[in-house]
């Protein structure tokens, strides 16, 4: 459960101030499926980064699963990200040197999971995301859809409570994009909170709750 209270995020560019988030109040319950839409530069990514504890707000209060996480130390934020948050990015962000299986394994290594268990969990993830025959391939040898599937497998391998996707289909063609969306929705059905930033009205409409942003403010919130 996510509770944002008067969150602001201000960027300074020289003597100019950009209010990327301007007093955001937002509650998202566990297991919700939310889309965030709005014009470019309206603050969608910044909002997602704050929710995912990648970015720190300049003002306001953030409560995650009942605990105040506004002023957590850098180390604690890393731990919360690892335990509760999964990120999916438009540009996949796979490590080019590592194979699909190794990319998926990364969070398990960070978490300190024993090698034997790591192996079986990666195996299961490869199975679940239909990547079995691609396990030993590097990202450069994978299609866009396969890369995003690897990224999603990596984001969910530690079973996060919330999955944050920033334009996850932005680099994919329509058909593959729809497949990836179906995959994410499958995770939502399994109980994960799903928050998706998208430009695509059609995809955004599939969510159960639609948040519209403009100039760092929430201008629409419909279910």
């Amino acid at each position: 459960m996510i509770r944002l209270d008067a969150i602001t995020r201000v960027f300074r560019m020289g003597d100019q101030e950009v209010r990327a988030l301007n007093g955001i109040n937002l509650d998202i319950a566990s297991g919700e499926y939310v889309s965030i839409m709005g014009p470019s530069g309206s603050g969608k990514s910044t909002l997602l980064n704050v929710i995912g504890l990648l970015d720190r707000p300049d003002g306001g209060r953030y409560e995650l699963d009942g605990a105040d996480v506004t002023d957590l130390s850098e180390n604690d934020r890393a731990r919360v990200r690892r335990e509760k948050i999964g990120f999916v990015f438009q540009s996949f962000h796979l490590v080019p040197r590592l194979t699909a299986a190794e990319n998926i394994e990364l969070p398990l290594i960070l978490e300190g999971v024993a090698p034997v268990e790591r192996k079986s969990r990666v195996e299961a993830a490869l199975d679940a995301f239909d990547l079995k025959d691609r396990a030993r391939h590097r990202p450069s040898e994978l299609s866009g859809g396969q890369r995003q599937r690897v990224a999603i497998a990596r984001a969910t391998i530690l079973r996060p409570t919330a999955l944050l996707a920033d334009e996850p289909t932005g680099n994919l063609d329509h058909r593959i994009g729809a497949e990836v969306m179906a995959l994410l929705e499958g995770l939502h059905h399994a109980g994960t909170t799903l928050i998706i930033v998208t430009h695509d009205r059609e995809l955004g409409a599939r969510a159960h709750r639609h948040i519209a942003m403009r100039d760092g403010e929430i201008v629409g919130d419909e279910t």
Partner: protein
Amino acid sequence: MNLRDTLTLSFSTVASYRTRSLLIVLAMALGVAAVVVLTALGDGARRYVVGQFSSLGTNLVIVLPGRAETSGGFPGAALGQTPRDLTLEDARFVGQLPQVRRYAPLNVGVAELAGGGRLREVTVLGSNAELLPIRHMKLSQGSFLARGSERSAQIVLGSQLAREFFPDGRAVGQRVRLGDSRFLVSGVLAPQGESMGFNSDEIAIIPIDYAQELFNTESLFRILVEAKSRNAIEPAKAAISHVLTLRHDGEEDVTVITQDAVLATFDRILRALTLGVAGIAAVSLAVAGILVMNVMLVAVAQRTTEIGLLKAIGAPAADIRRLFFAEALWLSLAGGALGFALGHAGSYFIRLAYPALPAWPPAWASVAGVATALFTGVVASLLPASRAAKLDPVLALSGK
């Protein structure tokens, strides 16, 4: 992230940037190899010199006419007034001292040796029976100059001379002519090779009286003295100085040197030299360290989005710092190991090419070389690693 995973992950990273890693490893390796080879050379030279001195004899005290300029015990040229001669009589007095086990007076000259139908100039040593034990010489045939019978005309030939004059190997018992006198070959020295620029294989040794007659001189070239023990060396030196000063009307006109002092001086000089070259070689390691730092900084810049990703999936700053740290560790470890191998191979080939030079790399140099490589690599990675750890994840993900 635990240590093992950190090491495995960083190793695979290092291995995947093959060319770059090889270059760094090579730079490190050359530095370490330079340390190892140069110290092997320096220490080899030291051992060579020490070995040469030791082959002269143990607990050796050498008396030479003339006063050395410095009191440092170094056999400098005798300057100043013409020194009083050192005589056989002096030698006998020295031999009476309680600290002295044995002594051998020495005269050196060149004379014509004829025998077995051959004739040539040879270096002649005049001495007594004690020369053999004092100088650690060995015989291959016959006997050395008879003890106490310095008046018998015996000659001992170096191995090379014996082979040259009597190729059939039966030198002992033969008569030869040296200058105008005839000598009976009593023994042949075992081959010893060169020592202190003196090839004992090519000398002939005759009793001191004959030598003085042959060279028409009363004065000795040197007196070789063997002290009773290592502890007796210094007292012997003092006693010899004292007795000779008394005999020379209170004039301190001889130089008494101990092999220990000379040896210690050479040892010190060559050790310093070895340390010096090791230091110079270590500088090249520092250069390699700067290279590592540079490459790591470039790596951090190149892998900014990757670092952002690691942070996004929950890697704490410490993990990221350790990853880069471990990469530098692998590079310097590989560099150190390769350098160690190269250095030892290089020293081996030097020993092969110059068998006389015991160019064994000292253990401390190998350890210091590898340790310096590790140290510089690790220190050089501190800045890049902490820079990576401090990156802002949002900015890093966007590649800024």
